[in-house]
């Protein structure tokens, strides 16, 4: 399911935290193919990690294996990364369990804050029983 050569390359992995390595390998391949700057690459890599961990941790309420698809779309001044899964409705942007308390950073809640800081736009939609979450990074070549 790796289609790095297409205009909208995508990869599908399962809801297993170890599969982050597959997403990173896919990101590496894509970043190399378009000559992505290192600082943008670093930002996207961390945003992808935080998003994937959130989806795996909160979007599924059963023990079965689920597919999570990650798609890249690049245009002149922006990169969109879309995550699609068939879990329960879960909007990472409105996760009330997770707020960042500066005095209690050991309790977590930093993931969403990191995602918001590293990307310029974040958009969640529930479409036909699927969660569709898109991160956008503006950039100039």
């Amino acid at each position, binding site marked *: 399911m790796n289609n790095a050569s297409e205009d909208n390359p995508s990869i599908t992995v399962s809801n297993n*935290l*170890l599969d982050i390595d597959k997403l990173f390998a896919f990101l590496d391949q894509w970043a190399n193919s378009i000559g992505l700057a290192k600082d943008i690459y670093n930002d996207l890599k*961390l945003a992808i990690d935080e998003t994937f*961990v959130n989806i795996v941790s909160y979007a599924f309420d059963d023990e079965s294996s689920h597919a999570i698809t990650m798609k890249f779309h690049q245009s002149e001044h922006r990169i969109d990364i879309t995550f699609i899964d068939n879990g329960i409705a879960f909007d990472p942007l409105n996760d009330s369990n997770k707020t960042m308390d*500066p005095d209690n*950073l*050991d*309790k977590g809640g930093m*993931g969403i804050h*990191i995602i918001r800081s590293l990307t310029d736009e974040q958009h969640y939609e529930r479409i036909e029983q699927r969660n569709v979450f898109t991160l956008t990074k503006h950039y100039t070549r």
Partner: protein
Amino acid sequence: MSLNITITPESDHGKRISIAGSLDSNTAPQLQQSIDAEINESVDPTVIDFKDLDFLSSAGLRVIFKTKKIMDNSGGRFLLVNLQPQIKKVFEIIKALDGMQVFKDQDEMDDYLAAMQNKVKEGE
């Protein structure tokens, strides 16, 4: 991605935890185990050496801040050294650098520790 953890003694009753590779949701439990085994209230200072750390996510940060809490509670020093730019940026994003002792390299940390030592001597 993997994480390598090396623990070495520091002057006084300190310990240095050098982390290399990736500190993320998959490897954070490994670091937590090492910290649980090695760091307690009698350790001072605890130094985290980030020299060869390439990637840090919020799961890793949680372990770092849990460790800081142990040191805060015991009054021990908690020192971070050798942060690469992309690692420092993560700390900046969560606005955590204020109130933490962060040194760009070993020399800067050695100067700080020597100055602390002199202060203790002057007080004797």
